[in-house]
């Protein structure tokens, strides 16, 4: 887990003026989960990450420390190709098609 995740989670929770238990309830997590995430004792799953980002109205990329603004998302296409050395052109085209669909699907987050 990126070292920034616990800090970003705490910062986003402060931004939304939510207690750990408020956030846990809104994200449908165990009451102790948020505390464990913020102290780094427990690593989240993607499912946890998504639930937290929705509850906090920030992006998953912000919680992961990939972008600086709570509502921003990282670049996609360049990274997708850079790490796809082993895939065929046809596979990459299919991945790109799916990536485009996902990019359209990714909800806009409120920017603060």
């Amino acid at each position, binding site marked *: 887990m990126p070292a920034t995740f616990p800090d970003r989670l705490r910062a986003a929770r402060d931004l939304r003026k939510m207690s750990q238990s408020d956030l846990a309830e809104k994200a449908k997590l165990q009451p102790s989960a948020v505390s464990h995430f913020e102290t780094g004792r427990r690593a989240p799953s*993607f499912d946890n990450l998504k639930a937290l980002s929705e509850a906090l109205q920030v992006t998953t990329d912000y919680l992961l420390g990939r972008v600086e603004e709570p509502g921003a998302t990282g670049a996609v296409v360049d990274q997708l190709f850079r790490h796809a050395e082993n895939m065929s052109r046809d596979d990459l085209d299919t991945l790109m098609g799916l990536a485009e669909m996902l990019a359209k699907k990714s909800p806009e987050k409120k920017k603060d």
Partner: protein
Amino acid sequence: MTRRDDGFNGELQAHEVLTSLKIAALPVNPFAIAEQRDILHQEKPGLAPGVSGCLMKVGDAFGILYSSCFASEGFKRFNVAHELGHYFTPGHIDALFANGQQFHQSESGFTSDDKYEREADAFAASLLMPKLLFKAESAKCGEGLDAIEALADLCVTSLTATAIRFANLCDDPVAVVCSKGDRVQFAFMSKPLREYRGLTWIRKGSGLPGGTATANFNKDDDNIRKAKRVRSTARLDTWFDGRSDVELNESVIGLGDYGRTLTVLWADSLPDPEEDEQSEEEDDESILPSQRWRQRW
């Protein structure tokens, strides 16, 4: 962390997902679970060799691209369930999407040495074949390959994945062996067989024992391609060393396009093992003949 821990984590996460979604009946539909989580899924007939699927994250949206290189519905479902394993299991974020990568390509099918792939395989098997439901149905399905085929129909899972789950959960002495040509691809043994003293565990990459129904079956590619089957018997010591007076059932089936052969070896029970000093020594895990063949969960 051991391979057994990987299996435990996968089993635990799958159980949590099934419980949270109130899924308590077979078959479990991984596509419906993906949709419930708003995860797009898309089939791709010819992904790169060895790649079973991809989990992709773009912004806050997730997608699964899965291989359908084999016609089996069970194969596709397992691939999707494997990707869901990456999605639901804590700790996979950093490992799979390191350095800003937006997708992770998977190698499912019980062959990877990577901890995260093994966890995702364990998750997929546990999601599609939940322990309690699977064991309850196993009790009604008879034994050996017949039971595995009935369970595969019930769970809509591939014969291979079902056979491995069967061996992992079975209370009888059972082994499943996947082979190609004269070589073992992988093998799984049930707990009673693993704990039976004095046996040599089947090694990945080792040669099939000569003269067995499986070795003879694999001499003709048509047997595999046309999914033919044979049923025979074998002595325990032919496959595992140990006692020479114990007979096992040996069912063999060709896996068609998969190009491999599945063998199920089983007995209703085993007699007390022969006592010898070497067996005592082999209780020490550090000198087991093949740690690679320890059960993954």
